[in-house]
């Protein structure tokens, strides 16, 4: 194997262009509905910010689960925000990358606990039913990958989106994340101490097109036996590669890792981390990017994420 010093740095690709944003969360519809501060979040005593079930017309949706409806509604919102007709996404030139940490839990629990469940229920226990409904609704037949995990998986999906668009595998990509916890809240309450802020349900979707010029960089690593410090520093080193971010969206939730990250970034003169909307799991990076895009924040944007022992970071420019 090559020695570390001989390796090229992380692959650099153009950051995709954000053409449309769809966000339907427990805070409301749209990016502007997200709270900017912890006091606005009113998180004291608030464990879960439940997303309403979108109402979609069409007999097909009569059987769909809440997470499917959230996914379709967010995707439609992103298409509308892009100023496109839905028919323009139909066919092989649009792809989809779907990410979720919890988007299957309610359907699986219901099927596990109800032995009388029927034919109509079982297909929706598959995580792929969620993006599947989106592809059916919009007629999408292009590249298609589903990743399971928290916010680091979303950073992976964004990096893959950049790869696919740069390679010409698709003209447009939807990067979609859905989180639905209400029906399994008791299970997630057991892990309460691992979350930063209230758990927030919903769906977030970015409609991406090929970008020009500015680089996207991604790195990810699991914490080693000696803890997170070296992992966080190494990941940030690879991603920043000497650049100073104009905005930092941090998905680090555990206090220890948050402090390590803040220390590393402060040493590089990075700006203060922007507040999160709560524990939004896989939706987090998409909401962070959406906010940075809407707010025309100074570039490049650094997004960080944690899930279990993984720490990941992504550098994005318009």
């Amino acid at each position, binding site marked *: 194997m090559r020695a570390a010093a001989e390796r090229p740095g992380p692959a650099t690709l153009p950051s995709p262009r954000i053409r449309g944003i769809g966000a339907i969360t427990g805070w409301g519809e749209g990016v502007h509905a997200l709270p900017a501060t912890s006091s606005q979040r009113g998180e004291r005593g608030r464990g879960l910010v439940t997303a309403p079930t979108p109402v979609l017309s069409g007999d097909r949706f009569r059987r769909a689960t809440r997470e499917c409806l959230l996914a379709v509604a967010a995707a439609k919102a992103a298409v509308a925000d892009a100023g496109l007709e839905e028919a323009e996404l139909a066919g092989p030139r649009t792809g989809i990358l779907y990410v979720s940490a919890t988007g299957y839990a309610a359907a699986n629990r219901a099927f596990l606990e109800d032995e009388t469940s029927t034919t109509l*229920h079982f297909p929706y226990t598959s995580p792929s039913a969620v993006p599947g409904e989106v*592809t059916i609704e919009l007629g999408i037949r*292009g590249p*298609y990958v589903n990743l399971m995990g928290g916010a680091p998986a979303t950073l992976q999906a964004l990096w893959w989106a950049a790869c696919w668009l740069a*390679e010409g595998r698709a003209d447009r990509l939807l990067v979609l994340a859905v989180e639905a916890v209400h029906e399994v809240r008791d299970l997630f309450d057991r892990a309460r101490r691992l979350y930063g802020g209230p758990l927030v349900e919903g769906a977030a979707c970015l409609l991406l097109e090929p970008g020009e010029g500015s680089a996207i960089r991604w790195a990810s690593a699991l914490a080693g036996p000696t803890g997170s410090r070296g992992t966080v520093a190494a990941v940030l080193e690879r991603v920043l590669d000497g650049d100073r971010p104009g905005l930092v969206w941090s998905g680090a939730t555990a206090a220890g890792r948050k402090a390590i990250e803040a220390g590393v970034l402060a040493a590089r003169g990075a700006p203060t981390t922007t507040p999160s909307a709560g524990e939004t799991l896989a939706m987090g990076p998409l909401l962070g990017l959406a906010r940075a895009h809407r707010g025309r924040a100074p570039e490049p944007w650094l997004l960080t994420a944690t899930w279990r022992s993984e720490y990941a970071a992504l550098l994005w420019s318009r």
Partner: protein
Amino acid sequence: MTGTLASPKRPVAITGAGVVTAIGQDLDSFWAGLVTGVSGISEIEGFPVSDLRVTRGGEIKKLRRDVPVAPSVGHGRARRVVQCRTSRFLVHAAREALETAGLRGALPEPERIGVVVGTALGGIDEASRALAAPGALSTLAGSLYDGPTRNLARWLGARGPVLTVTTACASGATSLGLAADLLWADQADVVLAGGADGLCRFVQRGFNVLRSLTRDAVRPFDRRRSGLLLGEGAGLVVLERADAAPRRGHRALGYLLGHASTADGAHITAPDPEGRGLELAVRSALEEAGLGPDAVDLVSAHGTGTPANDRVEIDVLKRVLGRRAHAIPVNSIKAHLGHTMGAAATLEAIMCLLAGRHGQVPPTLNYGEGDPDCDLDCVPNAARAWRSRVSLSTSLGFGGCNAALVLASGEEPV
């Protein structure tokens, strides 16, 4: 996607492989079972099935009891794992994959090792235990979809990119494609990739209510085919850049030349009747490989034995491969193993590589009556001597998932 790639990507070497299946828990017994027509289908004993319409499947009866000692990685501390059934499949397959790759004791630093696992069920079998055991955070974590992947990464000591892919029953192909992309992009030097799923009451009951399971034998491409039977297991391969194996004096098992995963956009459970998504996946994978239809020597079909799947798949193969489709073997090994879900596509990819190595093609079992809609050479019932170099493997899954892999067996890329 057709015509859009600037140039074919460099091939990625498959330097090792490992399997755990109902017909064998290592490559040799797996291959022997495939070519001699061993069926792993039996009455399920691992969980209650007496109230279900179909009570058989490709269940692994005697999973090796020993838990493999983890390879010494990074700081050198050996790790032991005792986890859920799916995780145990994975670590047993991983041990063999690393051994056949010549990498045990020779792994790169942990940050350069990636893990990509495809699964249709994740840790669902742990979920019932998590629901029944208030407060057990570790059981809860294990029941997540990425539970088995994380367990494998922990066992291996990998600290590079770790991905859990769930494109349903195409997951084991998508995972290999994403792993190859990680190598191409220099995000890792070694990626352990594949798929795994464990048979459990959750999924057996689910396919029962869907009426997708047959009470007859699994009969891919046969006119009498009436459904699938589920199976379980794991398949993992070691992927490295093409120049890595020769540098350490190791011979590659084969190469991943091209891959693609696409959507149907048609139905949640049934394949698109026109197979447009699968056709795009096959054409794109061939294009990425830089090969035309005439280069394909063997097709490993998804071949579940359901009426719709097999017809759609054969239609697509005829459209894409043209006359070549009638000149080469097109087999399915699901009658041997049952449908192993997340593991299926990886096990089929490994079968393709072994077929090239041994100059033989495993048969499609239980074939008796030809179907005019499936009139390709499915290698009925008996293995055949056949020299194959380039193979195509196709997969489909719930949610309208399709995937295609183009593989080359042998020590040199095509």
